[in-house]
């Protein structure tokens, strides 16, 4: 395989690959320009992470507006129009602005360090793909101030509610999603190029840490589905502005076509948001179990299997839209099958802990909570896969509970686990243990108080996306709202942890965690701006 690829970087030309401003002989730009022009993977990684943290709080405030309105029955704080904008913006911001950029940020920081590369393969492209994001999301947020308000049709923006019946700002929403999509595609290309070309000499594909593997597969998923999203929003744009009727039944179009296209993008998208999380957890659990990951090859294969299956299950989001019986059965079967490789992953994590030597540092706490809570989300996913039962679950709070379990105590906890795991490498200091434990326990309690009662309110009959509800759902919503505010407030502790950690704290050695094995732990903590300018010699572990 290697013979077909460009030569691995050697010290002679690693300066051009690293590409950074610091290497070019000019004076380093300072202040704002330094961040605007940086091509360094660590600085861009930091930018991504800070951006996603900001978006996480903005999206979180929107969620709290929703939870505050749902605190008790009746309309108290906001009107239904604004409520719908809040639910929509919360979803869009969290998916495209918080979770995805956070994973890209972690990839920027950690993929080169984990494979022994001096930088990303395409540093200038890297800068461009980051700076598209603030533009895209400022545009998206600005729609809230436009006449008629921002997007109010849910993050899934089903036509014709998002076309014929949409507010005038929808074209701006489409443009901002296009920009975010371009950013994702460019980021994915960069990650693939880096992983395939810049591995340290001697590191074969099957020697790569699982975070690198999951990101490689995620990047291929991104390249495969982002153009589909771009296509479907362009069709919306045409319907809105140029008189076409792709999704307009009155003109011979088909509103259900929209859903097929959207979910052909949307289902792989949910795996885009969870596969890198698998990678992070697969790094942390072995480290703190002081034992190698159980079934490394199975994990890689299961990731690939999940990725491929994710293209064959999209219509399980559409069980009640009026599909023919054969289609219902097909998608029910494939959806049930995707549970198998996902189960393999959970079993492997548990087997990794079995007969290990386990300690409970903050990253491990978050990783363990991820395993349990993600599995709970997986269980409700399995229930939703049963098509006849989905006729009752569909579009209720049961679904809301399901995907929040996968995304918040799932993907988000994995990101937090990764942040705690790598903070010593980024800052050179350990995060405060006491504060992190407070953050962890308040988050766990808050997140479960918020989302567990949603299972009950959904089963009892509460539809999604309603600003006001019947009286029998009042108790569940009260608990969810209290939990939501607890969870939101406890994330401020995370900011405090980061600030304290950047400023000081217990010094971390190069190998910050006793059981950590990957290449990133061979460079000093904090990692200097330029690492691996001379490729390390990689020693594959005895298999």
């Amino acid at each position, binding site marked *: 395989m290697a013979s077909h690829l460009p030569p691995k970087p050697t010290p002679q030309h690693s300066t051009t690959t690293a590409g950074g401003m610091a290497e070019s002989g000019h004076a380093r730009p300072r202040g704002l320009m330094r961040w605007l022009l940086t091509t360094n993977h660590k600085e861009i990684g930091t930018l991504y992470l800070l951006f996603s943290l900001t978006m996480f709080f903005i999206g979180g405030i929107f969620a709290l507006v929703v939870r505050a309105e749902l605190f008790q029955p*009746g*309309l108290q704080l906001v009107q*239904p*129009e604004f409520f*719908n904008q809040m639910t929509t913006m919360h979803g869009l911001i969290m998916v495209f602005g918080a979770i995805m950029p956070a994973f890209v940020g972690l990839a920027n920081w950690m993929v080169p360090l984990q494979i022994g590369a001096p930088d990303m393969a395409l540093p200038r492209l890297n800068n461009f793909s980051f700076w598209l994001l603030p533009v895209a999301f400022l545009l998206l947020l600005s729609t809230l101030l436009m*006449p008629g308000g921002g997007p*109010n049709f849910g993050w899934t923006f*089903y036509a*014709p509610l998002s076309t*014929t*019946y949409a507010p005038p700002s929808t074209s701006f929403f489409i443009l901002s999603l296009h920009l975010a999509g371009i950013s994702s595609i460019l980021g994915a290309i960069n990650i693939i190029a880096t992983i395939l070309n810049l591995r340290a000499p001697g590191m074969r594909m099957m020697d790569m840490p699982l975070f690198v593997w999951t990101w490689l597969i995620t990047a291929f998923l991104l390249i495969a589905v982002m153009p589909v999203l771009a296509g479907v929003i362009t069709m919306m744009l045409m319907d809105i502005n140029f008189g076409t009727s792709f999704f307009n*039944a009155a003109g011979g179009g088909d509103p*259900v076509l929209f859903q097929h296209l959207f979910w052909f993008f949307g289902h792989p998208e949910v795996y885009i948001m969870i596969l890198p999380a698998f990678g992070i957890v697969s790094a942390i659990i072995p480290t703190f*179990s*002081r*034992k*190698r990951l*159980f079934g*490394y090859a199975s994990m890689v294969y299961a990731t690939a299997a999940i990725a491929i299956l994710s293209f064959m299950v999209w219509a399980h989001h559409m069980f*009640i839209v*009026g599909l023919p*019986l054969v289609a*219902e059965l097909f998608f*029910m079967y494939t959806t*049930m*099958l995707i549970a198998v490789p996902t*189960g*393999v992953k959970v079993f492997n994590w*548990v*087997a*990794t*802990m*079995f*007969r*290990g030597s*386990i*300690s409970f540092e903050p990253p491990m706490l978050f990783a*363990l909570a991820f395993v349990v809570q993600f*599995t709970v989300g997986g269980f*409700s996913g*399995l229930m939703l896969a*049963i*098509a*006849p*039962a989905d*006729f*009752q679950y*569909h*579009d209720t709070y049961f679904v809301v509970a399901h995907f929040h379990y996968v995304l918040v105590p799932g993907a988000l906890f994995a990101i937090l686990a990764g942040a705690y795991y790598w903070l010593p490498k980024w800052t050179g200091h350990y995060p405060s243990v006491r504060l992190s434990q407070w953050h962890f326990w308040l988050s766990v309690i808050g997140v479960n108080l918020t989302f567990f009662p949603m299972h*009950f309110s959904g*089963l009892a*009959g509460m*539809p*999604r*996306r*309603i*600003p*006001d*509800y*019947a009286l029998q759902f009042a108790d569940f919503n009260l608990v969810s709202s209290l939990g939501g505010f607890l969870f939101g407030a406890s994330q401020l502790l995370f900011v405090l942890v980061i600030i304290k950690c950047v400023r000081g704290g217990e010094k971390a050695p190069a190998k910050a965690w006793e059981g950590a094995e990957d290449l990133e732990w061979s460079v000093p903590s904090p990692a200097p701006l330029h690492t691996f300018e001379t490729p390390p010699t990689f020693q594959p572990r005895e298999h």
Partner: protein
Amino acid sequence: MRRLLVWMAVGVMLSALTPIALANGWNMPVGVTALSRDIYSLHMIIFWICVVIGVIVFGAMFYSLFRYRHSRGAKAATFHEHTSVEVIWTAIPLLILVAMAVPATATLKTMYDASEADLDVMVTGQQWRWRYDYLGEDVAFTSNLSTSREQISGTSEKGENYLLEVDEPLVLPVGQKVRLLLTSDDVIHSWWVPDLAVKQDAVPGFVNENWVRIDEPGIYRGQCAELCGRNHGFMPVVVEAVEPERFEEWMAKRKEAAQQEAMSADREWSLEELMARGEQTYGAVCAACHQPDGGGSPPAFPALAGNQALLEEPERHINVVIDGVAGSAMPAFRNTLSPVEIAAVVTYERNAWGNDAGDTVQPSEIAERLAAQGE
């Protein structure tokens, strides 16, 4: 001693929670049709499968966390692979899923068999009400939320069926197979009644099929399940299931009322009569978008109060109500409202909230116009 107290406290809490859990509807309703019971049992089977797997997996995990703690001096083993174990834990879930797929397939096939129905009802979603059309019976009506605005805004006490009550429920006979044909006039809606285990999207331009055979008389409540715009949360579904004899009586009464309404279109109506009827219709149909005070919410929904174009062009005003405005959220009311209602609501809009057109639109005019268009 302390441990005993903790366990007692847990026991008391659990025993207190169980009756609450059973009484307060924490679970999917069993429902009142054979299908809803099938779905409920599928739901419980898959739920218990998940519980068993969860107990095993989390049990193994927490055992490991407890038993192999670093702080207890545990030494890590070095194994990292075991092909036969991996094959076993891949195969077992696979078998469980296959076993689960069999009853699920059978139930799904029953759900999809809407043939040989005793009664056909067309269900049309409109922003934000349901229209029911008893096919072949010449009986049709719309069903609107009947909870008052005061209850929603909190200025009056919320009733028992807050947000789950309508002015006219869908009346169905028990014991008969009723086929539901669902479609929509504007965006996608979803017709859902949990007790009947029927949830089906109503898609504009397409007709979906579902069916229900209700076992017990009673009133069953549900809601629109697909986000359909501003008043998505205010679009309930109420089904009243009655004995077949009572259903026949009800149907006869409905037909008579429909005839009278048609007859009354012929006579001359006074301004007061039209205003009174118009206020009623406006409140049920128009106020959701154009607001009870006619203020609208621009730019999507223009104001009617003080709207000069509306006052100066009565012809266009009538056309907009009858035909809607293409490419906007304004629907055509040709088939939704009777000539009397259209005439009344147009008259009301021209003479309410300080609008002073002073003219009336007669139901007979509208009826003629509709008849002319129909040819």
